[in-house]
């Protein structure tokens, strides 16, 4: 109790200073630089925007505050990352508004760093030996789970969408449902990794979950691009245009036949995976996809080699190198329109599987740096939750969440049985695929922007529904995952098996 009071007092101090600073800076600090200084030297002056001015304190607030809330919730058995999320939500625009929407634009740097670091960690967790032995299980679970969620969520959406009055007629309803089904396939590698790190989980369940999540991301790039391109263009043909096309928000330029020809994937990139899916016309879509995936894999190998060179030749200031290597990855991916997640996963896999033992110090550094990164990342994700949107369609969102949970449970458990995984893994593996976070939010944003780009008004209502579902999954998912990791005995490395042990091996023996 005393501990909780002390933490609450510290939290109060952090909030008071951040709030006080914001109030002071917004009331006293002029938003424009005074002309008098300019007159003195005849030079133009750029004033700091209040949002930029607040960003320094904002980073401190989110970092320290979320960590304190994480400490507060930890003894209750809740994962710390729930504390990070809740603090972000509390400080974000939906509740207190200490972290404003404008300020969050500047936090994109932190977000991109987090994505690369999380993916690097995820890659480092995947051992080639394990993949080789468990290829069948990972493939089966990935395919069955993805297919089941895609078709199952689409079917449930067919029932929900007409009641929301978004579209009329079977085909438009089906197309919208397909989009919903695709977005609901995703699960969050960040949440999975954060909990694995926090609970020090090790074992077959953990490794299988990570491997399946990475495989799902690779396949999702293809599926999402196809579904959005096809469904978007067909919807544009069948639905009357809203007449309102927000040029600034529209990512795609609409071609002569109403189909998007090209889009700037960098504009679409956001959140957890830096996803950049752009619908393209016809055969060009496959070429773009191939370039996108192949390029990401190749860039990952090059990045891994470059990092290995530094670590072998220079080998100094590892934490700072790590932080900025991740910034570098984000930069390269943004410039070349690649998937940050895939690039960093490949780099991490390469480093771990080729030079794993020699780079032990580096991976220790990666783990040490992960806590501050997780704090800020989840706090920012929490701040992105729009309670108003969740509240608007909460019952429908809840129905979709429940349906998704059941489908994930049934399909994963079934696939695990087919793959002959051990009983504990079979029972709890599904919980790893429930949480949704940044990738899903990014996909929802892309859906909204793409449909708006087609001139369709349903983009925003679909976005609201998707954000509602994702927000609920973001809250429910980590709780289930934490429970699963504890119950399976993998939390604290309790069920750790030898490196490279394949799932199902135990049962087969």
């Amino acid at each position, binding site marked *: 109790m005393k501990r909780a009071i002390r933490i609450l007092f510290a939290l109060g*101090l952090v909030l008071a200073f*951040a709030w006080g600073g914001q109030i002071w800076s917004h009331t006293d600090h002029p938003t424009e630089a005074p002309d008098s*200084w300019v007159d*003195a030297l005849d030079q133009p*002056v750029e004033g700091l925007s209040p949002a930029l001015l607040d*960003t320094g304190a904002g980073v401190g607030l989110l970092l*320290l505050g979320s960590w304190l809330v994480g400490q507060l919730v930890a003894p209750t058995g809740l994962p710390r990352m729930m504390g990070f999320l809740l603090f972000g939500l509390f400080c974000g625009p939906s509740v207190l508004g200490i972290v404003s929407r404008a300020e969050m634009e500047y936090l994109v740097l932190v977000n991109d760093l987090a994505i690369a670091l999380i993916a690097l960690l995820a890659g480092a967790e995947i051992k080639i030996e394990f993949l080789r032995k468990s290829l069948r299980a990972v493939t089966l679970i990935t395919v069955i789970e993805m297919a089941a969620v895609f078709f199952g969520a689409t079917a449930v959406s067919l029932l929900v969408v007409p009641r929301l009055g978004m579209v009329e007629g079977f085909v438009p309803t089906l197309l919208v449902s397909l989009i919903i089904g695709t977005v609901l396939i995703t699960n969050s590698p960040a949440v999975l990794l954060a909990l694995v790190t926090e609970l020090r989980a090790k074992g077959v369940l953990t490794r299988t979950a990570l491997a399946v999540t990475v495989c799902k991301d690779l396949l999702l790039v293809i599926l999402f691009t196809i579904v959005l391109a096809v469904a978007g263009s067909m919807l544009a043909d069948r639905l009357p245009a809203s007449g309102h096309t927000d040029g600034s928000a529209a990512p795609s330029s609409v071609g002569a036949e109403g189909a998007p020809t090209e889009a700037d994937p960098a504009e679409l990139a956001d959140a957890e995976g830096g996803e950049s899916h752009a619908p393209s016309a016809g055969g060009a879509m496959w070429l773009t996809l191939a370039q996108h995936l192949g390029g990401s894999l190749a860039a990952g190998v090059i990045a891994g080699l470059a990092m290995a060179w530094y670590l072998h030749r*220079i080998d100094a200031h590892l934490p*700072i190198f790590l932080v900025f290597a991740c910034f570098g990855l984000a930069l390269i991916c943004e410039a070349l329109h690649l998937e940050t997640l895939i690039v960093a996963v490949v780099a991490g896999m390469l480093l771990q599987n080729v030079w794993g033992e020699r780079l032990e110090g580096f991976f220790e550094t990666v783990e040490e740096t992960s806590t501050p990164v997780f704090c800020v990342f989840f706090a920012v994700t929490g701040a992105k939750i729009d309670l108003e949107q969740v509240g608007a369609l909460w019952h429908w969102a809840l129905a979709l969440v429940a349906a998704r949970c059941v489908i994930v449970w049934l399909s994963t458990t079934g696939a695990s049985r087919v793959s002959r995984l051990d009983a504990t893994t079979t029972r709890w593996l599904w919980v790893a695929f429930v949480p949704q976070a940044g990738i899903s939010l990014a996909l929802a944003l892309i859906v909204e922007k793409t449909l708006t780009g087609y001139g369709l008004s349903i983009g925003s209502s679909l976005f609201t529904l998707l954000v509602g579902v994702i927000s609920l999954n973001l809250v429910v998912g980590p709780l289930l995952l934490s429970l699963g990791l504890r119950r399976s005995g993998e939390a604290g490395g309790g069920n750790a098996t030898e490196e490279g042990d394949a799932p199902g091996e135990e049962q087969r023996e």
Partner: protein
Amino acid sequence: MQVFLTILVVVILALLATSRRLYTLRRRRPVIVLVAGGWLAMGAGAALGPSGVALISESAVLPMTPLLMVGMGWIGLMVGLQLRREVLVALPRAVRRLATADAVASFLIFGAIGVGGSLLWLEHTEPGWLVGPVVLIACASMGWSMETRSLRAREDAGAQRLELLIRASAALAGVLAVAVFGIGESIATRWNDGTMRVHLLQGAIRIGVCVALALAASYLIREGLRLAGRDRDHQLVVFLGVVALVAGVAMQFGAPTIFAAMLVGVVVANMQGVDLRQFERFILKAEHVIAAMFALLAGVLLDVRIGAPEIALALAIAAARLLFKPAHFRWWARRSDAQTPGIEAAPLPTDSALYVGPVRQSPLAVALAVSFVLMEDRSALSTRLLTIIAIAGFLSDLLPLSASIARHGLRRRSSQGEGPEASTEIAGATP
């Protein structure tokens, strides 16, 4: 995109500059001065920045403000952590007197130069407009560089005492410089109509906020470290969080970030019952990289489009350093030599290149100038002042460097003539 590129370039250069591979090169005598003063890094920053090839563009610099704020907080914390009570008590009285006397004299002399320069240079001559530039010029001139290795010729006890005197007084003068800068810059308030006025109440509020921040931060650090236990990743959260929060909130209140962070460092250094070794290790581990990064960013902010008045001001500062600092230091050193007990055992050398050491400007001067640039939203005046201080610092480093090289050359030549005994002395000169 541009921001990423900027940060990436800065960090790659900083990492390479501080790598082990370049360590051998850094030990060479002329390079020591360039590296210790951050001139190489600053030059690289200027070359890459908007004033140079513009690889780092003007628009990319602005979003880097939070990074600069945190860097400034880091430096302030490092300065403040030096002020541990036991260390202060253990310091010879001569060091404290020397540092205080230098701070007072520098404030008067360089403040006068600042006033003169500003009156000639600036259009506005009301006190409100003058306080910022004058306080910056005066504080940037307090103390001197702590680096003594490049001036070391022999390693007898007397020379070591002299080195210690230079380093300890430089550290203390640095603290005084940040304190005076913090107070001075806090009282100059910009009003919404664009005018600058001296406003004591606003200044008092800002200083009060800094003190309150320091107390709150020390509480947060104490509680945070208690909660973090031995987990280094959690300790890192506490450290980064506190530095970012203090730096950011100070900036919001219009107080100098470096001053607020220094106060936090002072309070933290004197906290009872908290093991700060891990905490200090975090800070010191990254010291060189942060310094290199900061120098690079300072270089990016430089405005090289300066005219004759700015160059004249820089020359005046450098000339005043040359005339005043060595004489003042020598006088105080002799005085302390006469007063300190046990002096017979190790008298200070009568002739040493170390006496020229105080000519060199403290690297903290550039940090203060960058803090001013941040507070002034990168106004043209502030970036030019940064350039002036950088030029003055570079010029003030040149003289001892050339003196050192000349002495070193002479000794080498004489050692070649005299044989192995003399060469042993020179070998000892290189650490």
